[in-house]
């Protein structure tokens, strides 16, 4: 199985070395590619200096565009499985081979690592958890499927989902929306419990004002996505 780790990175000079070394150490069956989203700090220099495998975007696209670039890469170089690992150190690479095996054994199209099945590890702030529960219920209402961690960035895609996302991926806050897209395209999705860590350094890009925009935008996006209807 050809397996790829997509590491989107925007201004992660504090974390990127740790993240990549962690992956090289703990996810040995996987290739990786760092997608540098036109960072303005010295993320790119760090990537070059360490001779990491990377793609550098000429202008900033945001998380959606960066991750989609990763899926395009996965499709172009014929990967069977692609998984997103964030550049901020929240995702633990030791779960990756478990996810890949689970996907393979159960013939799934997508596996999502959920923080909230076993409720271990970093559970995120209270406000975020309220938002997450809201999305879980909204998705359940619109698609009938229960996703306990719809905002989890730790998600592994099989070939069909790689193609789907390479073609269509939201520009920002993509996680809840893409879960609905995948569901409505008939993809088989399952979650497994994972343990995430708190952000290791640097600053989250989601502020209070952005949180409101996030809730409104993603709600409308999910509803429109659900209106697109189910496909076989």
């Amino acid at each position: 199985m050809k397996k790829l780790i997509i590491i989107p990175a925007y201004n992660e000079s504090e974390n990127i070395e740790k993240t990549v070394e962690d992956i090289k150490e703990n996810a040995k069956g996987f290739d990786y590619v760092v997608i540098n989203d036109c960072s303005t700090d010295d993320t790119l220099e760090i990537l070059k200096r360490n001779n990491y495998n990377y793609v550098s975007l000429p202008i900033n696209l945001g998380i959606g565009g960066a991750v989609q670039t990763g899926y395009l890469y996965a499709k172009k170089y014929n990967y069977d499985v692609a998984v997103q690992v964030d550049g901020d150190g929240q995702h633990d690479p030791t779960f990756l081979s478990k996810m890949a095996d689970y996907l393979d054994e159960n013939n799934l199209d997508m596996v999502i690592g959920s923080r909230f099945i076993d409720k271990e590890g970093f559970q995120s702030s209270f406000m975020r958890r309220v938002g997450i529960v809201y999305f879980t219920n909204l998705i359940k209402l619109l698609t009938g499927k229960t996703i306990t961690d719809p905002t989890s960035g730790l998600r592994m895609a099989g070939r069909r989902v790689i193609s789907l996302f390479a073609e269509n991926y939201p520009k920002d806050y993509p996680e809840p929306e893409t879960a609905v897209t995948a569901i409505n395209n008939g993809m088989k999705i399952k979650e497994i419990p994972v343990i995430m860590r708190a952000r290791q350094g640097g600053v989250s890009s989601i502020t209070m004002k952005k949180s409101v925009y996030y809730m409104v935008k993603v709600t409308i996006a999910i509803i429109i996505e659900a209106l697109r209807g189910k496909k076989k």
Partner: protein
Amino acid sequence: MMTLKLRVILAVIFLLCWIIVISKAKKRQLELKYAITWLLLPLVIFIIIAIPGALEWMAGILGIYDVVNMVFFMGFMFSMIVIYTLTIALSRHSDRIRKLTQMIALDEFEKRN
């Protein structure tokens, strides 16, 4: 004074607006960011019109005699705001296209030499 006729016409227009916008957004021809604007705007205007007295109050503050003119004025102001944000977005886009063009040209130069 705002006649019932006008209110009904406005409601129908807003509903049509919603249907068209959602249809375009579904087909991915209208980006979500802008779709939100076109969905929320009629809603806001509709709420202002629906709350009895709101329109009259605003007209009073602005010194507008006829309430119907308030509706038109509101529509005009919102249009201006939307156009303004469009010009800002356009400026950003043309800047990004310029950057991309320059990078591609310099890359091509490197490849050639």
